[in-house]
């Protein structure tokens, strides 16, 4: 059943939904990247909640002009207009009043959503029976998706994607360093508007599939996951697009395989699993990598301190140090150094003395800056320099040659 769903074998509707969700995921992930890098991810929350009154008003208008109230294009147009208005309110409140952006976002999302709820109750009372379906915009409903709906979603996704690709360089620049972008002649305000407009477009397109409460997740989670894997903007964008697409596809397929499972939440949870995997297992930025880095560092410190203790004939009480030394064959379990251990310990002690000379001498200033107590001196100085230092230190004292 699951494999059938993943390979689009579950019939016409399921296939439409799966492909639509995949398109949506790609464009949401790619667009969300710039929102995330601009540190304005939650603006999308305001945008998505602000779509509700537009949907309801569009429905009321279409019905009162005698049309079919559930025309998807009409509803999406209405949602785009009210989302745009909400966006304007957020930026106006942030710029013209002393309120911070988070307060503006919260105010806009709650007020617009509340007004939308008022309108929904109006619709419920005005033409009972025909309002069915508008609640679907809250959490998304894919059950009755039509071919024309899928076309609207796919086209919308493709257009957003094209605009993102066209503007990715200026948008990346503005996201990282608005001042630098402005000094390069970019109109930061306009680029910001494009980023927000794209987020709005994705939100509007995604309303039908995942609903307005969860579309935010598709804009935020894939970029956050992608950020773990790389430090380059273009790759973050690419990975966010791919993870977004994969979560859309897999989520929609899963929900097609188990009809009782709603599509939107499943897509979000698939996306969250990818995030969790990235958080823990990403190389370099992941939690596991950080833990490993810490352990490696800890071992180096213990090893170094252990060797210095061996060289000076001091007893070692630290268990981890002892274990590391015995495992490397440098000391016996009773703390007596082996032949190897004695050699390495002497080297460590000599290195310590060499560093002392380096740090006392102005001519080695550059090398001395790299001293952190663990660095091998050979990685900093040439053989000749080390030889010169050794001449200054002199040979072992009190040891017969």
């Amino acid at each position: 059943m699951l494999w059938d769903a993943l390979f689009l074998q579950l019939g016409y509707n399921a296939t439409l939904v799966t492909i639509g969700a995949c398109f949506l995921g790609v464009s949401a992930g790619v667009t969300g990247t710039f929102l995330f890098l601009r540190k304005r991810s939650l603006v999308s929350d305001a945008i998505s909640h602000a779509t509700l009154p537009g949907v309801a008003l569009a429905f009321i208008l279409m019905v009162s002009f005698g049309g079919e109230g559930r025309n998807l294009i009409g509803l999406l147009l209405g949602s785009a207009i009210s989302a745009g208005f909400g966006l304007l309110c957020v930026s106006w409140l942030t710029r013209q009043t002393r309120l911070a952006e988070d307060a503006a976002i919260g105010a806009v999302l709650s007020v617009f959503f509340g007004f939308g709820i008022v309108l929904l109750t109006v619709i419920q009372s005005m033409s009972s029976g025909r309002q069915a379906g508008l609640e679907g915009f809250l959490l998304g409903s894919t059950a009755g998706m039509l071919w024309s709906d899928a076309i609207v979603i796919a086209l919308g996704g493709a257009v957003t994607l094209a605009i993102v690709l066209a503007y990715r360089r200026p948008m990346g620049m503005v996201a990282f360093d608005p001042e630098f972008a402005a000094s390069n002649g970019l109109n930061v305000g306009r680029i910001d508007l494009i980023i927000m407009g794209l987020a709005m477009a994705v939100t509007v397109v995604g309303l039908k599939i995942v609903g307005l409460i969860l579309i935010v997740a598709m804009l935020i989670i894939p970029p956050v996951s992608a950020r773990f894997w790389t430090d380059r903007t273009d790759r973050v964008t690419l990975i966010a697009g791919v993870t977004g697409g994969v979560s859309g596809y897999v989520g929609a397929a899963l929900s097609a395989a188990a009809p009782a499972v709603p599509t939107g939440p499943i897509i979000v949870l698939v996306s969250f699993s990818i995030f969790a995997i990235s958080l823990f297992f990403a190389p370099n930025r992941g939690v596991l990598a950080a833990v490993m880095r810490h352990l490696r560092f800890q071992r180096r410190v213990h090893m170094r301190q252990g060797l210095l203790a061996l060289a000076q004939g001091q007893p070692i009480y630290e268990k981890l140090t002892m274990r590391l030394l015995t495992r490397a064959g440098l000391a016996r379990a009773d703390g007596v150094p082996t032949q190897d251990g004695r050699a390495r310990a002497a080297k460590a002690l000599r290195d310590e003395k060499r560093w002392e000379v380096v740090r006392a001498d102005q001519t080695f200033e550059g090398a001395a800056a790299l001293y952190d107590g663990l660095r091998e001196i050979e990685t900093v100085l040439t053989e000749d320099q080390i030889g010169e230092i050794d001449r200054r230190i002199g040979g072992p004292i009190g040891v017969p040659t």
Partner: protein
Amino acid sequence: MNGEEFVPLSLTPLLIGMFAAVACALPGNFLVLRKQALIGDAISHVVLPGIVVAFLITGTVSTWPMMIGAAVASIVAVGLIEAIRKLGRIEPGAAMGVTFTSMFAAGVLLLEQSDTSTVHLDVEHALYGNLESLIWLDAVGWQSLWDPVALAGLPNELIRMGLTLIVVTAFIWLFWRPLKLSTFDEGFARTLGMRTGVLGLALVIVAAVAAVAAFDAVGSIIVIAMFICPPAAARLMTNRLELQIVWSVVFALVAAILGYFTAGYGPMWLGAENAVSAAGMIATISGLILALAAFFGPCRKRTGAPVA
């Protein structure tokens, strides 16, 4: 409007709405000043999975398990946000976005998967609440306010909301100085030996308690609106925290009362027969108040900010 109609049908929902509005607006003042306004948004989303899990464990729709479930869920969410922020070095907004959407999605999924068709528990209810239904059936008029038998039939939500309001007020009153200090100058507060981290967490927990109690009665949308709109509007009216709190309480009360009556009677004045959602209308009115404050409030500008 006479007492026989008003007291049983409107008095209790109105009072619950007012209590909920004030209980959320009070901690909201500090959240807005600390730029944590969206914590309220996050909490009101994660309350859903908490309630659903509590329902799945206990199997009944009873109040206390659900309140505890919701409170636990909000604490888990706050912890998760912090963990993602610290472990993944992710900016707080995005960390919050990841957390609350995922938990909300999990809540919706659990709700749809479990057999809740027999009980009154659904996503729509969680969003807009059911303020209008909290009527006081035992009342016959104003005289019922002195009738112990009728008083025993008050909706539980009213008592719970009243208690929550007392708890929230007591918290802010008791910790007034540390809260004020740590909100405006956290570094200074720390040099005085205050545990600002603990205090911040306590504030979030109090906000969560208010959110959970209000959520039960009036739905999540009103919670977010009341956390943010009245304090934000009050912020535009004054430069003093004491006055700001007073303004926010006034705004919250005005929004609750006006919103409730507009929702209940407004459509009838316009010729329609059915009332609209009271919760939605209260949120809308609070937005209008904020808009008025943003246009005319005496302290609406940033002082010292360059005129762009």
